[in-house]
């Protein structure tokens, strides 16, 4: 039985009521993962989610893989890890998520040109929060 949108909505309500942060459901041929937006300052606002965009453009998104506070630059460095227009390699660090005493890197999934750093320094981010938009190499670029 396919999971309906209304099911997702109901599940989300249950998660919210019970204070559970996330749920993952796997059935043959389909899987669903719901992660609750628990922070008041979550960076994944509707506008940003739209900016992160689905398949409309061909950009790829570097996402956070832990929950914490986003840092665009290391506190000991003046310059942010990446700036718009910068060429980066796959695996490059585009920012940090501070979680307790630790810094987890946000990694570029593909080589390309940085389009935008979406998250703001200090913002609370969660698993899957879009951090940076990257225009992969090989795509037609309006400039150049």
């Amino acid at each position: 039985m396919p999971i309906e949108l209304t099911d997702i909505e109901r599940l989300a309500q249950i998660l919210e009521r019970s204070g559970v942060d996330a749920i993952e459901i796997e059935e043959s041929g389909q899987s669903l993962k719901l992660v609750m937006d628990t922070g008041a300052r979550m960076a994944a606002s509707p506008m940003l989610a739209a900016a992160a965009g689905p398949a409309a453009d061909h950009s790829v998104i570097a996402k956070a893989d832990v929950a914490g506070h986003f840092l665009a630059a290391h506190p000991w460095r003046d310059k942010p890890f990446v700036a718009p227009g910068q060429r980066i390699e796959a695996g490059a660090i585009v920012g940090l998520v501070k979680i307790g005493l630790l810094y987890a890197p946000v990694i570029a999934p593909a080589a390309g040109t940085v389009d935008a750093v979406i998250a703001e320094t200090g913002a609370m981010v969660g698993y899957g929060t879009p951090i940076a938009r990257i225009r992969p190499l090989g795509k037609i670029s309006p400039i150049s």
Partner: protein
Amino acid sequence: MIEILSVTGPASVQDLGRFDQYRFGVGTSGAMDDVALRAGNILLGNDENAAGIEIPMLPFKLSFGRDRAFALTGAGVEAEIAGRSIPPWWRSYARAGDVLTIKAMSHGARCYLTVGGGIDVPIVLGSRSTQFRGEFGGLHGRPLQPGDILPCAASTATIGELGIEPADLTLARANASTDETIVRVVIAGEYDGFDGPTQALFWRSSWKITPQSNRYGYRLQGPAVKPRVPIEKRSHGIVPGVIQIPPNGQPIIQMRDAQTSGGYPKIATVIRADLWRVGQARLGGKLRFEQTAYTDALAAEAEMSAYLDRLRTNVRLVEEIRACR
């Protein structure tokens, strides 16, 4: 294994130190910034006493003989592995043949390279630390040279990248400033041999760290601090952190490679929880001493243990979270 390709200044293999031989006159040696060495080893899942490389001057370059996780902690440095830039206090990984290049130092005075499994030089008198004075321990008891091959113990370290907030930020003192390191000290045996105004001068002065400062000791420069009458004592036991006042009135802080005894009058001793701050104070920088009660020194040590406990727990938790994904 690791091959040293280029080195500037006296880089050496150090673990936490050699603590059981002091009564025979064998100094502790060990990392000048023990917090940084521990942090690197915690990131790698190593025993916290595993040996790493203490690097006081740059550039420094080495190559990895096989795939291996490593961490850079301590001083803030510009570093690259196989073309990737490495942030400060960071765990990264090398593929066989990758070259690690460490360039400029922007913060602190000593960078620590730790590797998954640890640097596996022989244990001498209970430690892998290089003892410069006695020329044993570490690699052939001497600073590292280009061409040196360092064996590494087997490791199961995870290879994902992960960083730690520099201890300098987490453990920042409220009254610290960027150009002056403030360290807490307890008064020592001959403190009362200095009159009130001289004691006050010692506390309020900002002491310049002279170029004659190294793993043996830090020689400071400032107004002459002299006892009421010259104090001459027979040589007696001293420990790293002891601040001696030689006849010229310019303090010397004994560090990790200090002799185990000395005869100069001792005005104060840097508490153990702050000794790493001295180890990261740069030549030409300023030091100031803050008087602390013995009980506060013990409390500072408890805080340090709590910090390290928190670090261990944080690393374990984040590894678990990321392993689930």
